[in-house]
């Protein structure tokens, strides 16, 4: 990470409001704007005048697709929010669209902004009052810990485990190259078994496939995971159907990753959700109830948001207490159901997190949806573009890795130190979310895998 890079992010809350902004800050801002944006009326991109708005088309430079018609605002340093050159693409507010614009920006030399990085740069460039220093420092800390938590959860996902697999394969090659460099006299049997050039070709192809499919349908496939948890007959199915039926959104049945969960996709005002019905509890009879709860809780903990259902008039049981204790670390809402049959006699759990609904009459449903929206955008799940931030980061990492692996193949004949340099970059790029640096991993791997030394 460097302080000199050009950075970008979606800087408006996603899904709310009709306009979304992708903000780019840094020395490459004008150049990137020129590549993506063609103003109406034959104006040349290089002639953008500072602090003027342009109307035109935003195009994906990779595919030539027109992404949107919108406004470009170009502002030259130093009179900008960050004190650097800034370009803002004002688009129509859909999540999918904004992400494609952001992706196009990232593919042209910007890097995804760290949490709070625009503000930090503004401060470092003298754009903020000195008294704000402490709040800036607080914000960096808070946002980072949130983002880290989110990132580590993301890595459990399908894309995350793929990325881990590619890292492992790159490390397999790196270790061989490095061990032969640092121990040239030792016979490394493994080196004869792996055709490095062939493996590099495979890696490149697979990463390219991954990159291509990462966009299509992933918004629907990997939306925000919302788990419905609760004892039997608390109204989960009814709520599920109410949510799905009312929205008339695209509904697909995706077999769950865990045996007894069922996932359904829906779209809540442009926010893709994956509703996960924890069937384990629903079907459980007494002897297996304990196991069912286990499974449900496991599924729930892997989700981004939990809807914990409890009938309004029902008293809480020890299962409910158990569930509550287990899910506390994950953002959740306590949904008191069947309001049509009577109001809850007494509040239970955190009243701040409680919503009362009746899926039959529709009472409270709007409030529930609004609370979900709030949770997704503003509150604990992610700051603003959180979920997408995690994914965009991974995608950018894959994009960068493809480039470096291509480089390694291209310069294969220059020698293993050069190949290794490219592969170390690929490993670092794919590993930005996982912490350990290449060098530490390498030394560890070399000595654990090979028998070396005098």
């Amino acid at each position, binding site marked *: *990470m*460097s*302080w*000199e890079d050009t950075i970008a992010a979606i800087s408006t809350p996603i899904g709310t409001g009709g306009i979304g902004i992708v903000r780019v800050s840094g020395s490459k801002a004008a150049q990137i704007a020129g590549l993506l944006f063609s103003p109406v009326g034959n104006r040349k991109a290089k002639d953008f005048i500072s602090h003027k708005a342009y109307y035109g088309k935003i195009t994906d430079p990779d595919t030539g697709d027109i992404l949107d018609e919108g406004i470009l605002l170009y502002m030259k340093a130093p009179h900008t929010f960050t004190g650097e050159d800034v370009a803002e693409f004002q688009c129509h507010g859909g999540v999918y669209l904004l992400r494609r614009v952001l992706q196009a920006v990232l593919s042209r030399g910007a890097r995804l902004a*760290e949490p*709070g990085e625009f503000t*930090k740069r503004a*401060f*470092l460039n*003298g754009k903020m009052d*000195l008294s704000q*220093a*402490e709040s*800036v*420092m*607080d914000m*960096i*800390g808070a946002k*980072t*810990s949130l983002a880290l938590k989110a990132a580590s959860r993301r890595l459990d996902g399908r894309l995350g485990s793929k990325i881990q697999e590619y890292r492992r394969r790159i490390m397999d090659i790196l270790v061989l190259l*490095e061990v*032969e*460099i*640092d*121990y*040239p*006299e*030792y*016979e490394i049997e493994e080196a004869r078994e792996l055709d490095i050039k062939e493996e590099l070709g495979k890696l490149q192809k697979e990463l390219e496939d991954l990159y291509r499919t990462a966009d299509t349908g992933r918004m629907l496939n990997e939306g925000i995971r919302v788990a419905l948890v609760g004892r039997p007959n608390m109204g989960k199915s009814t709520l599920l159907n109410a949510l799905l039926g009312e929205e008339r959104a695209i509904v697909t049945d995706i077999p769950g990753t865990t045996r007894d969960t069922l996932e359904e996709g829906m779209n809540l005002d442009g926010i893709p959700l994956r509703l996960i019905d924890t069937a384990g509890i629903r079907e459980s009879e007494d002897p297996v109830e304990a196991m069912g709860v286990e499974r449900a809780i496991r599924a729930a903990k892997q989700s981004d948001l939990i809807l914990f259902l409890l009938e309004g008039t029902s008293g809480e049981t020890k299962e409910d207490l158990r569930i509550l204790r287990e899910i506390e670390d994950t953002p959740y809402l306590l949904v008191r159901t069947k309001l049509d049959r009577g109001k809850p006699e007494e509040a239970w759990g955190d009243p701040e997190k409680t919503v009362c609904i009746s899926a039959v009459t529709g009472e409270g449903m709007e409030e529930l949806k609004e609370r979900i929206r709030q949770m997704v955008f503003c509150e604990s799940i992610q700051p603003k573009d959180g979920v997408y931030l995690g994914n965009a980061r991974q995608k950018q990492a894959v994009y960068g890795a493809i480039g470096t692996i291509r480089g390694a193949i291209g*310069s294969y*004949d*220059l*020698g*293993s*130190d*050069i190949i*290794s*340099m490219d592969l170390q970059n690929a490993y670092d790029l794919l590993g930005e979310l996982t912490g350990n640096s290449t*060098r530490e991993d*390498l*030394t560890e791997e*070399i*000595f654990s895998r090979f*028998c*070396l*030394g*005098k």
Partner: protein
Amino acid sequence: MYQEEAMDVAVIGGGHAGCEAALSAARMGMKTILFAINLDSIAMMPCNPSIGGTSKGHLVREIDALGGEMGKNIDKTYIQSRMLNTAKGPAVHSLRAQADKFRYKEAMKEVLEGTPNLRIRQAEIVDLQVEEGRVKGVITASGALYPCKAAILCTGTYLSADCIHGEYRQHSGPNGMAGADRLSGKLKALSLSMRRFKTGTPARVDGRTIDFSKMEEQKGDEALVPFSFENSPEGIGRPQRSCYLTYTTEETHEIIRRNLHRSPLFSGVIHGTGPRYCPSIEDKVVRFADKKRHQIFLEPEGEHTNEYYVQGMSSSLPEDVQRDMLRTLIGMENAQVMRTGYAIEYDCIDPQELDLSLRIKKIEGLYSAGQFNGSSGYEEAAAQGIMAGINAALWIQGKDPFILRRDEAYIGVLIDDLVTKGTNEPYRMMTSRAEYRLLLRQDNADLRLTEKGYRLGLISEKRYQSFLRKKEAIENEIERVRKVMLGGSREVNEILVSRGTAPLKMGVSMAEILKRPEIRYEDLEPVDPGRPVLDPQVIEQVMIQIRYEGYIEKQIEQAEKFQKMEHRLLPQDLDYASIHGLRIEAAQKLAKLRPGSVGQASRISGVSPADISVLLVYLKQRKRT
């Protein structure tokens, strides 16, 4: 106690670190004294009889470019020389020489004795005189006080050392030398954090009892490359000795497994932390149980001795087991052991007690280098030695410390790794530890460091002038081959096709053609009439800089980003605990280590990028108020 003559610098220990430390301090005009427990142990090589190898060869060339002695000394005393990794690209070409270890130490002692300002003295240092947090002198076992302004600890493996094989534990330093038992306790009393490390060496066997005909011979290179940039290949030519490759057998492994209960490593007698990269043979057999055989190299210990070093058989098993297992190696059926292999445990310092100038932070004027700092290897020791000597001298002269960055030298990587990250095992240099490997080549160590060595006063005027001429010749020739255009003439295309590369359709610069891996510089001579007569070293640089241009530029760009953070200095009086927003763990680590720059801070484990952001914001705020 009586008082001896006052000195500027006292170097404690005469190993590879101590020699370079004493030489650099004395050459910078400091009145210097070097103490060794036994003057016959000066520059002793108690383990392998070789200098250099991957990444270590880089260190030796860097030491030489700074005006150190190791490169010149091995050039005088080598008995075999090889460039390793020649098929793997220029960043990892590595020079290694087998030394006549007896002549090596004689030659080094001769240099020390001939150096103005430098005295050598046989004595054990048992205490430091420290007043108000500052070194005032060193005290010998026989009660002499040598007042000094700075002291450099280069105690190697001598501190409270124990040598162990099997049930036998000998309280002594390496190779039968007396150990130093009293100093370690005194250092602990100065509240320095000390630890206990372990290393080992294999047996030496009598060459007359080895059947070399059953082994694979490994000869030295015919085309020599000297370690020292001052030497020419012609100037150092001499007959070379061979090394031999053999293997362990199933029987070897069986003997080891049968006797594991007698191994101090496995019975728990040894507590020190040993290096993973230098495992004993019993360790290898246990950890890699499915491996059918292990490679063993036999290396001559000198020109006039029959002793052979059995590389790969480092062991602390009992003497009789060592004898039995050595005799199961192919060609060693009748081998006679001359010296038994052993493990050695010793006290050393936690290198996080040091700053980047190798100064011990708690005590002014106290520096340290080599195995005492938790490293391993002659070259690693010498590299730290020259830096500690330079910095002690600069400190006495009231000048800024001399610090090499990670993008400037392997020496920089070595020292930064040690003092910033610390180490839990004896630290060995490896090329994969260097981020900017393509910039830190062994061939360009002089281009990277001679200028610095000259400014420190360690490089002679004559050598400096010849360096400047070489540098200029390289620059001129690169410029020339970029300008000279070659067309697709029949003559040019014939050369290209004969080297197995595509003919030209249109004119390109000669540099473009030289980028092709198939083309050597000399291939284009017939079509390059304006070519000057150049030294092979110059041509080598021209070719590397042209061929790897794209990659070199990429690394330079990365290095420049890296430097920006290295140049943001952190005040030494920062109260980290009071910085708002810094996590507690980070604040504690930063307060303990007191990094010199934001860059160094970012490499401390437990300090996150967010903490660095907070630091930057804090520094900005501090600057504005």
